[in-house]
């Protein structure tokens, strides 16, 4: 399947999902270009799984729309389903099926199914096709589920905690496979994960969710350029620092601030005596946004119409 580069692979427009009285996700707007590898980060219950399920069409949004290559996922037609491969958390499989049965299931239900890829991957991993799923180890089951997602050959691959049950070597191999698929076929990948170091290697796009609200979304290079770490004298109030202070650590002599601000303003401010600035790292940036209480941020920059109060309440992921 080929798609014009101008149509975003993933586009969320004011997406919200309510479970009963509680919003699991709210006011979510972003647009990801095709071929990106998107890291989706957030604490438990932030709405990551909800966002992925909405992308796949397993859930329909309560408000707004989420589209894959221009088609709303809520339509739940064969056409929209063919655009997204999904690996759910805990990699569900039919336990009584053999691996070959699982692949036949995939072949029966997906016109684009790539049998060659599926079988080659099992051969490489040394997983026998005739073995039952329940006789496989947790890591092997994860590999089978992941292989099914890859063999569907959809242009978008949505992975929910794909490496949680893999050993370190299998994680590396898996990440390599995903990057290779992305480079070869222009696959767009969205990965929810808690392993920030791994996302740093993989991703060129980042989405941070907390309390069901979007905290940060953008191309990684762009985000790193628009943030900086400033070291300032201890008593300096936030108001004297350019941009928005995301995170602040005060030590005896000076304070270290992570700010979202124009790089020129940061450079100008840092020329003051006693001030210094340095570029921000990926992990540092993510942790700063995760540490930040979502309510505060919603009130500062994402709140639309005084709904900040709901953002801090418990939500389902």
């Amino acid at each position: 399947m080929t798609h014009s580069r101008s149509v975003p692979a993933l586009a969320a427009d004011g997406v919200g999902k309510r479970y009963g009285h509680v919003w699991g996700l709210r006011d979510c707007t972003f647009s990801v270009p095709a071929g990106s590898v998107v890291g989706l980060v957030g604490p438990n219950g932030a709405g990551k799984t909800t966002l992925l399920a909405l992308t796949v069409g397993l859930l329909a949004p309560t408000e707004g729309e989420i589209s894959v290559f221009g088609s709303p996922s809520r339509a739940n037609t064969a056409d929209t389903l063919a655009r997204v491969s999904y690996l759910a958390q805990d990699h569900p499989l039919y336990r009584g099926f053999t691996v070959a049965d699982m692949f036949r299931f995939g072949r029966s239900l997906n016109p684009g199914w790539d049998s060659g890829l599926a079988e080659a991957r099992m051969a490489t991993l040394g997983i026998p096709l005739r073995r039952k799923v329940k006789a496989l180890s947790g890591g092997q089951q994860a590999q089978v589920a992941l292989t099914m997602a890859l063999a569907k050959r959809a242009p978008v691959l949505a992975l929910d905690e794909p490496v949680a049950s893999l050993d370190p070597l299998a994680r590396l191999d898996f990440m390599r496979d995903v990057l290779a698929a992305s480079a070869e076929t222009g696959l767009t990948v969205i990965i929810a994960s808690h392993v920030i170091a791994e996302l740093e290697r993989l991703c060129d796009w980042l989405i941070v969710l907390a309390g069901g609200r979007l905290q940060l979304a953008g191309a990684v290079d762009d985000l790193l350029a628009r943030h900086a770490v400033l070291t300032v004298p201890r008593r300096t109030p936030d108001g004297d620092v350019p941009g928005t202070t995301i995170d602040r650590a005060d030590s005896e002599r000076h304070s270290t601030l992570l700010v979202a601000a124009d790089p020129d303003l940061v450079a100008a401010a840092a020329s003051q005596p006693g001030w210094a600035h340095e570029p921000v790292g990926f992990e540092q940036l993510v942790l700063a946004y995760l540490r930040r209480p979502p309510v505060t941020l919603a009130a500062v920059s994402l709140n639309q119409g005084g709904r900040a109060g709901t953002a801090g309440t418990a939500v389902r992921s």
Partner: protein
Amino acid sequence: MIWVTWRQHRAQAIAMLALLALFGIYGIAIGLWMRSAFNADGLPACLARSGGTDCGPAIASFFSRFSRGASVPLNVLPLIIPGFLGAVVGAPLLGAELERGTWQLAWSQTVPRGRWLAAKLGLVIGGLVVFGAAISAILTWARGPLDEVSIRLQPPPFSYEGIQLPCSLLCAFGLALLAGLLLRNTIAAMVVGYIAWEFPFLAATLLTGPFQFMETTVRIPCTGAACTAASTNSTPPVTGHLGDFVTSVTRSGNELIVTYLPAGRFWPLQFVVGGMYLAIAVAAIGTAVWLLHRRTT
């Protein structure tokens, strides 16, 4: 979808085919035995001669052979089968997918949920109806001679002849399907589905009350012993017609007031009871489909 449905219900299908084979063998054995006994008791000739009114002793002798022993399963098993099998097949169809999280796998392939569900329901319901009809056909054939001289309107065989068995199966299937969706647990859904099925089943089996609207009352003149000895369970019935289901007999002077279900009401009553089962099945399956649709839209 056909292969997927087959693969997921393969074990159930094979078990049911095995059960069908056992019933086939058993039914043929009982049926042949019954036919030879029917002839040995001279019933064909007696029935042809008198239409049944003079055959009381011969019929009683014939009955006594089939009231216990090898023919007991004929009357007992069909009472358990629809509820049990319907619940076993219906509970996991949604319950297991939700319990194990595999719904996320099933509904993220290139087949919309609606089509997935329609294909599964169509194939499984089709299988259940064929299975129920086959068991029913075997038992109806096996009981053929007995049905000629006994009351088909009584719970056994009324509950497994005609259209009862497939309808009852679908009723239990639908209730267990809905229970699986609500409880998200296969075993609990089987138990709840089976228990829920007991209500319409008991209503149809034990209570004659619901069917009183189909009863007829007649006054039959009588004399002497015929007046005092008259009862609801005489053979042939006091109405003088084999197969009539007499529910009450009271004496009023030289008349008997007899309330009964005429044998000819077998089919209308089959459709009433079968329709009740089907209505429950349609309501339960429809609710499940609607809930599933609402959950995800």
